[in-house]
């Protein structure tokens, strides 16, 4: 019988059915960070349990690390206590820990693929909802809560109900200046922030075939913003090429054998899905959010919704969003003044994100009064950018070039919005208060759109600002 990748991986990792009807599912690799793990280790101690497979458990520190003064002890005593706790837990339980001294530290969803821990056909769990990112490799990856972190630590398995499977095709060719971020913002806007509840998403079609691995990660990353806990792309030659030679990938003959196996993983062409949705790439434009959920988005040349013009069911949430965002109904979103530009997060802080922006940013300057920060997703990404001189382009433009971490994506470190500052952000969540100030405001967009906003001081169309796709490209 033809099977989807999801089905193949789920079956292979099923240990047994549990009495309440859930599946006991084996986890191939468990990733850990400092915020959602300390209580789980505490529970292990209370129960007198060990980490069952420490060699398949990897930790890093990302949410609380400062991106400027990175030496320990951190000036924030609570953050310092958390990093000490993580180190203690890793030492006591024998877990590999990518700390700052290792040079491999970074956002957990950047580090996993970078180290080659994320591999096709395996399962990954992490106490973090953006674990779906790893699906870009044909991995089935779940964000889990802290009690489940405990379960995976203790048993290398977890209890989970099998989701349904939805295939999302994006065919055709993306217009110039339209990026993976725009694709996922579009999908979320079309299917809704809860449209994916109960589903795993399989992304495919010509656009995904052409996407590089980092673009695929951007889309899979935000599956959860559409309600889907799992999102993945079938692995192909690009997947194998990206992984080849990475530290935790098999080597030599074992590599060839692994690739052989991985080639059989992709969904069979005639497999069944519970649902199929088709989109056209040509319909997608550079997108920005105007509200307080990732589904509240428009194309850059559209206007902010007017609660008087929509049906009643949406009215309250639009009013609430516009009140928080201090935006005018019916006005164009383009031209909205910004205070901060943030280029970072597990959605968009990989090498190709910085490379693409640097192509256009060269010779340009951040607008006066705008605070612009660029935060690589991992120390590895930062190092390569520095070797290639990409950091110089950002610094010369007036961006602060920082050390790796989650930074202003959720502002658990010192990088925070103040008051009602408005931030043009390449991250994934525009919830109220997400970037550290309860009244702070976030507009989500692609990295190049963040750069355009930084340069003009207002929400702008990157295609105009940088002449993307035009014959008289401003690129220097």
């Amino acid at each position, binding site marked *: 019988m033809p099977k989807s990748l999801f089905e193949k991986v789920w079956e*292979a990792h099923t240990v047994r059915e549990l009495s309440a009807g859930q599946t006991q599912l084996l986890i191939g690799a468990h990733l850990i960070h400092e915020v959602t793990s300390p209580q789980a280790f505490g529970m292990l101690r209370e129960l007198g349990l060990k980490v069952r497979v420490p060699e398949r458990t990897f930790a890093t520190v990302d949410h609380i690390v400062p991106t400027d003064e990175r030496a320990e002890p951190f000036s924030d005593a609570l953050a310092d206590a958390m990093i000490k706790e993580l180190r203690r837990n890793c030492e006591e339980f024998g877990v590999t820990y990518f700390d700052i001294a290792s040079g491999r530290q970074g956002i957990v969803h950047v580090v996993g693929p970078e180290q080659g821990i994320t591999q096709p056909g395996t399962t990954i769990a992490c106490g973090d909802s953006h674990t779906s990112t790893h699906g870009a490799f044909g991995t089935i990856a779940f964000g889990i809560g802290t009690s489940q972190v405990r379960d995976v630590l203790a048993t290398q398995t977890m209890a989970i109900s099998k989701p349904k499977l939805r295939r999302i095709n994006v065919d055709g060719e993306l217009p110039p200046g339209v990026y993976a971020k725009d694709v996922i913002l579009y999908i979320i806007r079309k299917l809704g922030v809860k449209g994916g509840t109960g589903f795993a998403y399989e992304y495919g079609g010509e656009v995904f075939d052409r996407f590089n691995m980092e673009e695929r990660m951007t889309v899979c990353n935000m599956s959860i913003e559409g*309600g889907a806990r799992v999102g993945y792309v079938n692995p192909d030659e690009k997947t194998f090429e990206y992984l080849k030679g990475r530290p935790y990938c098999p080597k030599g003959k074992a590599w060839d054998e692994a690739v052989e196996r991985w080639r059989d993983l992709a969904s069979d062409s005639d497999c069944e899905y519970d649902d199929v949705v088709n989109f056209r790439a040509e319909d997608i434009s550079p997108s920005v959010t105007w509200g307080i959920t990732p589904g509240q988005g428009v194309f850059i040349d559209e206007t902010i919704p007017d609660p008087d013009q929509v049906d009643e069911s949406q009215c*309250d949430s639009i009013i609430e969003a516009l009140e928080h965002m201090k935006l005018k109904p019916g006005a164009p979103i383009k031209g909205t003044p910004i205070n901060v530009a943030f280029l970072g997060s597990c959605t968009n802080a990989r090498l190709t994100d910085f490379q693409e922006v640097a192509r256009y940013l060269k010779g340009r300057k951040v607008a006066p009064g705008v605070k612009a920060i660029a935060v690589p997703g991992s120390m590895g990404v930062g190092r390569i950018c520095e070797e290639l001189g990409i950091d110089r382009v950002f610094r010369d433009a007036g961006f602060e070039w920082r050390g790796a971490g989650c930074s202003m994506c959720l502002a*658990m470190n010192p990088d925070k919005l103040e008051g009602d500052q408005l931030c043009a952000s390449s991250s994934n*969540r525009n*919830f109220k208060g997400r970037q550290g100030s309860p009244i702070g405001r976030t507009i989500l967009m692609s990295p190049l759109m963040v750069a355009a906003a930084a340069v003009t001081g207002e929400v702008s169309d990157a295609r105009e600002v940088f002449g993307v796709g035009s014959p008289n490209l401003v690129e220097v």
Partner: protein
Amino acid sequence: MALEKITNISGKAVYVPGDDIDTDRIIPARFMKCITFDGLGEFAFYDVRKNEDGSDKPHPLNDPRRSDASILLSGSNFGCGSSREHAPQALHKAGFRGIVAESYAEIFFGNSTTLGIPCFSASPEIIREIAAAIEADPDAVVELDVENTTIRCGDKTYPGELRESARGALLSGKWDPIAELLEGVDQVEETARKLGYVG
């Protein structure tokens, strides 16, 4: 590790209206700088309850008549966003033992069930009707019957929904799956070996 069988939750209720209430709203990230879950209760919904100077904003959770509420009513896609278990932990520590909402984000639903908090779904009309009833009589008791997945308020009984795996787990006292997962170790070993995960 026998757990209590959860068949029935009852108590006063509070209605926090709105759709897509995310876990950042339920517990803002800055309160997650902690290594235990203790003390999270007082920070539940902090930024919508408090002004920057710490004084109270008008909010249902600040209503003294509801200070001992143990059932939370809300809208659709409740608990979306971050997977932080700090969210249901904060609600539990703030005294909530059951939730009734139109729908839930999946990770939040699972996290809550693992803490023994039944998450009932109900239609918007039912939720509005119960909200009106507790508005009229703040002492009205709302009762979640896990066995029959019904919601009682006053002399009315409404149909609720609860995913069968959660219902079964709560009723049989297996809502925290750790004991059962540990029982499966031999099979775990076997599956891992088959997949080449060993060694």
